[in-house]
């Protein structure tokens, strides 16, 4: 067992190649092949019928809205929509599919040869990477298994498994990229940016709620490494990647693991691996059955699909604004540049900023808090910023308190800390934590004098005209007042005290 390499070393020695398979559960009212509802969170086995339970004699019929949705996704991804294709049976025995096969598409996907441009931030500015889409195809989702009897609730050690078929048969769109090469150290970020962009694009189409935490958008990340000049290496496929952060983390972790294996002279095994949100690493899953083992054949219970060109053109004409166009419009409205926009997208906070602005917050304030303190707080807790219990109203209230001088930025951070910790809304946190700006000049001057006598050499420098040294004294005063002073006021009082003009 080799140990993982440091990321920078892995990238120094190997070229990573990534590929993404994203599954999107469509938000249709009814399932793909039957009229059962698709509502999330219904009691187990209450949204099932003979078709999705695979009972003998039942016959599937395709959902027109699902076909329309996948064509729109394909068009938005710049794909060609084929003129004729069939569904296939993918045969496998696993209790998540009661039919013992999944209706999917194999060699005749509905949408082919598209691309999605994604942008990542680099030291040299935003970099746009074109991710080529190999195919977009339609299939049905599987039932949900719960493993029971084992001590951990995980699949190993379970005595038996319990199956809820509510999800079985919900229309699922699988979007498969071609291998993405040449991204080097940016590979993890490109992977994340791709899934983010795809999520925004699908959401913009209104065909799915694309909630990773509820499983309506799921991502498998393929990673392989090769030495420069060599052909592509053996890839692993990491499943269970359930958040945008995890996409980046899983790719990074797989690059490091494979580099460790290869550098030690080992071989990467083609296998399915599981990503663990808690530890950020992947472990081996079940070994992958070969494609021929699925014995795909054309689904005899369904007739072929042949979307008319007129229909496809009509759907193309009605596509909404692309996320990239939408972002350009927002950037213009908010008066920000490419770099700021890419930062917002990569931090996963663009939607949050947009929602906050829509709720009445000034764009600058929305950006400042979401891209700054709140992103940091989310990172510290290992969650996405969207999962923080902070609302636009909270930020609006904090900004109001800052505007009237009741809070400064440092205290505002403490307010958000309290809101995130579940201590209530901003006013409640302010009251409970007794947060208030010290505006009594006398108290501030006393603290300034203390700080000056504690650091006489700095005091001398400031007197001598080195105004930039004032920061050390201001910092000491802020510390002494536990952040409850107005830093600009402290600075002004300090300079006045020393009889120095501000630079």
């Amino acid at each position, binding site marked *: 067992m080799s140990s993982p390499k440091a990321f920078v070393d892995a990238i120094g020695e190997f070229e990573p190649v990534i590929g993404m398979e994203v599954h999107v559960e469509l938000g249709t009212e009814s399932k793909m092949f039957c009229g059962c509802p698709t509502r999330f969170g219904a*009691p187990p086995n209450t949204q099932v019928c003979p078709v999705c339970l695979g009972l003998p004699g039942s016959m599937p019929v395709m959902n027109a809205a699902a076909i329309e949705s996948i064509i729109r996704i394909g068009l938005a991804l710049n794909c060609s929509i084929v003129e004729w294709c069939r569904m296939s049976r993918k045969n496998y025995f696993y209790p998540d599919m009661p039919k013992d096969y999944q209706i999917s598409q194999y060699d005749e996907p509905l949408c082919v040869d598209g691309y999605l441009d994604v942008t990542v931030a680099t030291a040299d500015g935003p970099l746009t990477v074109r991710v080529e889409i190999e195919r977009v195809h339609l299939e049905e989702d599987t039932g949900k298994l719960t493993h029971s009897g084992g001590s951990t609730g995980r699949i190993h050690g379970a005595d*038996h*498994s319990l199956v809820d078929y509510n999800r079985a048969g919900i229309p699922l769109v699988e979007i498969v990229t071609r291998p993405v090469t040449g991204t080097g150290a940016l590979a993890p970020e490109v992977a994340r940016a791709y899934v983010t962009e795809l999520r925004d694009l699908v959401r913009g189409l209104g065909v799915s709620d694309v909630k990773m935490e509820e499983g309506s958008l799921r991502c498998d990340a393929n990673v392989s490494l090769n030495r420069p000049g060599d052909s592509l290496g053996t890839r692993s496929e990491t499943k269970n990647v359930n958040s945008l952060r995890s996409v980046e983390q899983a790719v990074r972790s797989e690059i490091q693991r494979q580099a460790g294996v290869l550098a030690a002279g080992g071989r990467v095994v083609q296998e399915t691996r599981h990503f663990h949100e808690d530890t950020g690493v992947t472990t081996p899953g079940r070994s992958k059955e070969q494609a021929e083992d699925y014995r795909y054949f054309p689904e005899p219970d369904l007739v072929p699909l042949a979307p008319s060109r007129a229909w496809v053109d009509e759907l193309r004409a009605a596509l909404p604004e692309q996320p990239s166009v939408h972002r350009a419009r927002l950037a213009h409205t908010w008066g920000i540049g490419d770099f700021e926009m890419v930062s917002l997208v990569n931090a996963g906070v663009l939607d949050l900023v947009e929602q906050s602005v829509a709720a009445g917050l000034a764009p600058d304030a929305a950006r400042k808090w979401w891209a700054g303190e709140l992103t940091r707080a989310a990172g510290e807790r290992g969650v996405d910023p969207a999962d923080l219990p902070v609302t636009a109203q909270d930020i609006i209230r904090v900004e109001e308190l800052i505007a009237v001088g009741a809070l400064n930025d440092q205290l505002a951070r403490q307010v958000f800390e309290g809101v995130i910790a579940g201590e209530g809304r901003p006013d409640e946190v302010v009251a409970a934590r007794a947060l208030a700006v010290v505006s009594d000049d006398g108290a501030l001057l006393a603290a300034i004098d203390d700080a000056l006598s504690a650091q006489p050499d700095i005091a001398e420098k400031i007197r001598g005209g080195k105004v930039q040294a004032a920061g050390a004294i201001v910092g000491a005063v802020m510390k002494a007042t536990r952040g409850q002073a107005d830093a600009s006021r402290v600075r002004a009082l300090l300079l006045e005290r020393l009889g120095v003009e501000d630079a």
Partner: protein
Amino acid sequence: MSAITRAEVAHLAHLARLDIPDAELDHYAEQLDVILGAVARVSEVVADDIPPTSHPVPLVNVLRPDVIAPCLSREEALAAASAVEDDRFSVPRILEEEA
């Protein structure tokens, strides 16, 4: 001599979850050979201008509107299950044969 090997029969049996005793593998290999031979004769008459047929009815785009239809009740859905726990179908441990 069968073109289908014993190992292939055993592999197919595993994929189909059929428990075929070793002693019967040759027997099925011969039978599968005969069946494949019969099907192979079809390809002798196939011309390039005849596309493969997967469905006998020349129809496309049989679709239904996205409308919810009544489901089975949970009791009906679970009625034929061999075991039920917590309103779910209870099935044997999953990775046993793959482990």
